[in-house]
Structures are given as C-alpha cells and as structure tokens.
C-alpha cells in the first residue's frame, strides 16, 4: 500500500515534467497567467496613490500567485483531449489522483516561479519581509490551493481549451476583486467581509500582509487553517469530478 503510494507519487512527477515541457509555453498560459495580472496591477497602481508600498507589493504577490497558479492547470485536460493524447495517458497504470497531482505540481511550480518576480522587485524597492518562513510556507500552500482550484475549473468535459479559459475567467476575476487585494479588509463593509471570507485568496493576501507589513486582519493560524481547508476541498473535489468526466472527453 505504502510502496504503491510512493510509486504513484513518482509517476506523477513524469506527468509534471511533461506538463512543464508542453504547457508552460502555450498562448493562454502566457496571456492569462502573465500579462493579465500585470495589466490589472498597473491599472490599480495608477488608480490608487495613497496606499503603502507594503500593501501594494503584498497585493501584487497575491494576485500574481493566484493568476499564475490557475493559468496552467485548467487547460491541460481539454488540451490533451483535443490533441488526442489523453487516451494514451489514461491507458497507463496511473490513477486519476496521480494524474491530477502531477498537473497540480506543474501548475504550482509555474505559480511559485513567477510569483518570485514581484517579491524580488519588492525587496529591491525596499520592502522588508518580517517573517520569511511564514511567507514561503504561505506561498507554497496557497499555490497548491490555487492550482487545485484551476483543476477543479477544468472538470466540465469540454474539449475546447477556450471554453475552459472562459469558465475560469468568470471565476478568477471576481475572486481577485472580492479578496481584499485592492482594498484593505478592515475598510470593507460587513457584506464585503462576508463575501471576501469565501475566497481563499483573501487569506493568502492577509497572510502576505502579515509577513511584509506586520499587520493582518485575521490571525495567522486562522489564515493557514482556511487555506488548508480550501486546498483539501478543491483537490479532493477535482479528483472526484475528473474521475467522472475524464471518460466523456474521449
């Protein structure tokens, strides 16, 4: 049992390697994963002059991680189905969970890699990371969470990557706007806070602000617990739903 688990884990790395080689360079990944957060952030930067650098950089890190980690994972399944590589892939002795885990990992690595850019820029312009270990753990955890969300978004059995991109845009943009990226949580109305609490990005942004600015709205423990809950929920749901729909793509 344990050896089989390790064995499947190792095979999922094969899936990850393949995803990295193929999907990082696809058009939708570049446009939705890189350009979109950049433009959103520039628009936001021009619109708001009285916010601190700490607030801006932590918001940028949150937004970047969210967009990049949800950029790769949703397109993989429809892309594989459309190019007819899916059937060969699922003929192999790997479980759907193995496959999804491999895809998640590829998405996570992309998300973390790109999110280092705003972090490094921030360090250059003088932000001070007070709790680096917490920040790093937060980035990894949130990366897993957002990548799994991306995989959940690709469960509808359509084979056109553009359909999935549309579905994920419908989810991703609202999530960014409700999550306290642009407005501090404390300044939100009661209902604003309620809505914000439904988004995993809220907790990551809060956690980042704690690590960079020293203050947060929720307690750090609560932020972590919320992120872990969302992560487990998204991943398990993504596996269960893909198990049902993957055959319908053939």
């Amino acid at each position, binding site marked *: 049992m344990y050896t*089989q688990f390790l*064995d*499947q884990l*190792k*095979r999922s*790395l*094969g*899936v990850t*390697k*393949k995803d990295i*080689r*193929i999907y990082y*360079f696809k058009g939708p990944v570049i446009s939705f994963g890189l350009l979109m957060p950049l433009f959103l952030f520039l628009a936001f930067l021009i619109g708001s002059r009285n916010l601190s650098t700490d607030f801006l950089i932590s918001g940028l890190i949150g937004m970047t991680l969210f967009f990049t980690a949800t950029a790769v994972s949703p397109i993989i399944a429809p892309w594989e189905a459309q*190019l*007819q*590589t899916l*059937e*060969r*892939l*699922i*003929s*192999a*002795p*790997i*479980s759907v969970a193995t496959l999804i885990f491999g895809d998640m990992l590829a998405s996570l690595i992309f998300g973390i890699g790109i999110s280092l850019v705003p972090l490094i820029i921030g360090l250059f312009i003088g932000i001070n990371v007070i709790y680096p270990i917490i920040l790093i753990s937060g980035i990894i955890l949130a990366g897993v969470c957002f990548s799994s969300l991306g995989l959940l978004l690709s469960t509808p059995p359509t084979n056109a990557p553009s359909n999935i991109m549309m579905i994920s845009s419908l989810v991703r943009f609202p999530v960014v706007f409700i999550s306290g990226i642009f407005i501090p949580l404390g300044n939100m109305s009661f209902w604003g806070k309620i809505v914000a609490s439904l988004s995993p990005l809220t907790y990551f942004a809060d956690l980042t602000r704690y690590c960079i600015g020293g203050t947060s709205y929720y307690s750090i423990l609560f932020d972590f617990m919320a992120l872990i809950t969302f992560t487990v929920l998204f991943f398990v749901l993504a596996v269960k739903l893909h198990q049902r729909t993957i*055959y319908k793509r*053939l």
Partner: protein
Amino acid sequence: MENVVEVQNLTKIYDSLVAVDHINFNVEKGEIFGFLGPNGAGKTTTTRMLTGIIRPNEGNAKILGYDIQKEPLKAKQNIGVVPETSNAYVDLSAWQNMMLMAELYGIPKKEAVKRAEKFLERLGLYERQNSKVKGFSKGMKQRLILCMALINDPILIFLDEPTSGLDVQSSRVIRDILLEFPKEGKTIFLTTHNMDEANHLCDRVAIINHGKIAAIDRPATLKNMIKRLNSVEISFDSIIKTETLSEIPYIRNITKEGDKFIISTEDVDNLIHSLADFAESRKLKIINLNTMAPSLEEVFIKLTRET
C-alpha cells in the same frame, strides 16, 4: 491453454444505443486474436473497456488475471495499448515521448533507455529520435505510438486499427513486428475492419457487428462455415456433358465455363472424392482441380448480415 483475457457479458450502453451487447470470449496466451467488424460495430468501445479506459454497464473482463475494474493499475502494468485515435505529444521529441511512457510505467531509467533504443531502431525511428513529433508523418507517428506501447515490455498488447490509413511501408513494418510477438510469448488483441489483415495475421478472429459477436474461430474454419459458398472448379482431358456429371453425389449446382465446370457443394471433401471416382470409372484424366473457398470477406458479409 492459459487465458490472458476473459470476457463475460461485457456490455456498454450509450444513451439508448447498445454499443457492445453482452459479449463473451477468451484470448489465449501467445495468439494473435483479431476483432473484425465494420465501422460502428463496437470494436473501439470493447477495446476501451478491456484497457480500463471506460467502464462497462454490465459484465466484467479479466486482463492477465486481474479484474480490470477492481484492480486497474495491476492489470494495466503489463499491457501495451495502441488506441485508435491517439497521438504522441507533438511538442516533445520521439525520445521524450518514450521516456514519459517509461516514467508512467515506472520503468527504471537504464532499462528504459535500452528498450527505447531497441524499439526506435526496430521501427525505423532511431535517426529521428530527437526531432519533435510535430514534423512526423502519420506513419511515423503510428510507429512511435507502437514503440511507446512496448516500453513496459508488455505480455499482452491491444491495438485498435493500428494500420488504418497508413502508408504501405509503415503498415508492413507494423504487421511484421506483430508477427514476431507470439514467438516471444506475447499475446495480441488486434481490432481491424480489414479482412486481409485479419486473415494474414490472426490465429483466431471474432466477427463483431452491432455490438454482438457473430462468430469466433480460425480464419480457415470461418471460411468453411459457409459451405454453401464453397465450389470446386474441374476440367477433364476429354469432353463430357454436364448431364453425365450431374449424376454424381454431393453436387448442388453445375455451371460450365469453357472447358471447366464450376460445381458448388455443401461438402467439398466428399465431392472431390466422388469426382475422382467418376474420373477413374470413365478413364478420364483430371487436368485441373481447384477448390474455391469463400474469402473471409464473403464470410464476413454473410455473418454480419445475419446478425
């Protein structure tokens, strides 16, 4: 004989269409088993159920002793699959595709390299191993997919119309390599709509139509199943009348074509004996005697019309 595939009541229903309808058969170790049927007969659906790609609505299949639904990972570990519509990753090189497969099957790197070299060489892709698959012809892609299916050194190989739409050269290479497998103790499950292919490659053939199996047997026996279609062509060294000939037993019908008689029969063996007796009793010499068995195609048309 040991069975590597055991199928019981396997059934797949799409909406209201019964794509595969309670089929039963076994595949024996070391044979090339053909699954022959027209388009839409249910070949691909059956293959997908046997390889654990889709779930049947009813029935079960044992692959190498494992229930494909209950223990899919174990069953899949030692089989090779060439799906009907499948592609290698076009953004990867042939070599990268092979190594990906090796990782998915958990083959140690050293062994994987050895096998990949061997199979790419054997299927004429060795020189192109580092080119992206994007630039490959259809035949090259299909040969690569066969290589990919062999990386785990499978005991049992499923191929769904592997030569359909390929150039002659690629088809030949693929058929040749298939014929080598039984010698290594490997078993092949091959679907095809090509009678010639089934006839030349297969030890046994199942004929499937509308999701049902019409017959399973050796190609030669299948041909004999339709005795009505059997006929014998004969000519003698001197002229004889059709009426004299028609007196001998086992003849259903005679037609004369030039100096030859075409005699249809239900019992080829006895007819030939009685023709020989006839010739001897009349001191005739038989100049030419041919049995004209039906082609597998005729058997196929007949059987698929009946079901």
